């Protein structure tokens, strides 16, 4: 029984990262209708930057977290300004998708040049000794991962429902044209969405890297996992992104333990295709014009 629970918890830990990637994609999508496949790449970039920061400056792993969050939210606003804004003005949705594929590829390339093809890790935030709860042995980093996800979800909810910016963002999400007529600067909302996604990438990357090894090749698996989670959950639905991510992690944890991790991937794809064909708006997505 505890064995079973352990697999579930391990899966959920990975699921937290997928959920954060999917949440970032979802925020970007709801504001700008752009599916950013690069989100998974930024998670690995943030992780390796944190590792270098930690070993280079000799600061504690936990201290890298706020630094990376600030750098990545500002950095992503810059990326959006330089790359996304010009593309969004000119390109069709399909070409925009390829622009984000280009970003993913470029991030992977940057990692290869900057960090080589070696895997990296760093010490846990609060020591390596696990916490024993009811026969389960839990790495303390699991709590940080769950915390990162909880803070992101809560923070996003507060921002969207309790602030003026949030109101403007929701208006933009539901109808960009009408929002622009109301005097909302849609371009600026888009930058804010990318900034939020950058912060989430930094949270995910910095918190996961202490319990694993990441390298430039990890970029594609993360991008793919985040994309599956976001689409299955329903693009643009934050609730759906979190559920999709946790579900995918759970699936991989349980399948990886009892059968084969590749089967988990296949099941997830089958689910993805089924969702796309039967319910293209995703499990939690609101129906919109997705069919011709």
């Amino acid at each position: 029984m505890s064995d079973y629970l352990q697999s579930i918890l391990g899966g959920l830990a990975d699921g937290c990262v997928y959920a954060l990637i999917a949440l970032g994609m979802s925020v970007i999508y709801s504001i700008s209708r752009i599916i950013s496949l690069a989100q998974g790449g930024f998670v690995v970039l943030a992780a390796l930057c944190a590792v270098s920061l930690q070993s280079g400056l000799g600061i504690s792993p936990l201290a890298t977290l706020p630094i990376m969050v600030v750098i990545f939210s500002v950095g992503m606003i810059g990326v959006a300004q330089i790359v996304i804004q010009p593309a969004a003005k000119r390109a069709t949705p399909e070409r925009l998708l390829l622009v984000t594929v280009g970003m993913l590829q470029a991030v992977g390339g940057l990692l290869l040049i900057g960090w080589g093809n070696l895997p990296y890790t760093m010490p846990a935030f609060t020591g390596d000794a696990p916490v024993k709860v009811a026969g389960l042995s839990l790495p303390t980093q699991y709590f940080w991962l769950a915390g990162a996800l909880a803070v992101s979800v809560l923070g996003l909810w507060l921002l969207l429902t309790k602030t003026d910016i949030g109101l403007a963002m929701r208006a933009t999400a539901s109808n960009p044209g009408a929002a622009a007529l109301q005097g909302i600067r849609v371009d600026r909302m888009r930058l804010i969405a990318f900034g939020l996604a950058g912060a989430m990438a930094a949270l995910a990357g910095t918190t996961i890297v202490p319990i694993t090894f990441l390298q430039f090749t990890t970029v594609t698996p993360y991008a793919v996992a985040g994309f599956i989670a976001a689409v299955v959950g329903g693009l643009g639905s934050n609730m759906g992104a979190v559920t999709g991510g946790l579900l995918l992690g759970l699936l991989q944890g349980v399948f990886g333990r009892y059968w084969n991790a590749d089967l988990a991937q296949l099941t997830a794809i089958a689910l993805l295709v089924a969702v796309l064909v039967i319910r293209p708006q995703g499990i939690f997505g609101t129906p919109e014009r997705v069919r011709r």
Partner: protein
Amino acid sequence: MTVAQIAPVRVSAATGRTWLGLAVGALAALALPYLIPTQMSLLVTVGIFYLACIGLTPLIGQAGQVSLGQTLFMAIGAYGAGLLTLKWQWPTALAAVVLALFCGGLALIFGAAFLRLRGYYFALATLGLAVATAALSTAWISVTGGPSGMVDIPSLSLFGYEVFSDQANFYLLVVLGGIAAWITTNLRTSQTGRALAAVGHDSVAAGMLGINASRYKAVAFAISAMTASLAGSLYAFYLRFFSPEIITVTVAFSIVIMVAIGGSRSAFGPLIGALVIQGVPQMGQTFATWVPLFAGLVLIVVMTYFPGGLWGAIGDAVGALRRPAPSHAKEQR
């Protein structure tokens, strides 16, 4: 209607030049193995990826649908060729043709399901196919050989002649690539092509004109699947080996990158794309390290500013130099 009026006037001059261009191209292809004998394996790889790319051009360039699933059909073409020839002793050429037809049919079925979806949902669904391909080729060990791959696949045999050497493979690919280029170019300029372009431009309006959008797109998707399957079979016959590393999700991305960088509205675009993406890493370790970053940045720039790809951009630049007619440049979009 101006198009119809202008076109016939230019056609006679154009066909003359076309034939000259083709003749020069054929001569260059014949001479290449003697000019650069040490780069033949690169040219064969470029040829194989060209085949995988060229079939995508009607779908991407005309119908405006991005398929990220070419590796699925390459995998079926490759593993299928291995299985049919090794287990059931099928003739190699027959296996390649049957698999290409099978992939075309499979694409029609997938297309019927996916192409009803709006915009990039199709791209996402095909990305799903690419991920499934990578997982399945690793996990389905009894069929694919799993991570260690499928070994001892025979070379292609055509009319009793074994296509083994780089040179033989290259000439075969020049012929097949030429045929595929001819078919896709005709498709673009034919009624189907114009229907596709209309669908790509505005499918609702095209629907009102009586064009069945999904059907045209499904045909374009089937064509892409058939060339990909053929490319996969030829790759397997050439390498005499196949493994999951050859058809990862990254490869699925890079095929689309080749088409997008080169340009999806001409038969030469994908050739440029395949040459750049396959050729540059061969120039040395430093180049190999920089290629992913370089390819990513080029893709961003091309997708943002040059919808016609590098080939389209060159064409525009040459056109602008020859004939300063700014109004045409806008129409090109």
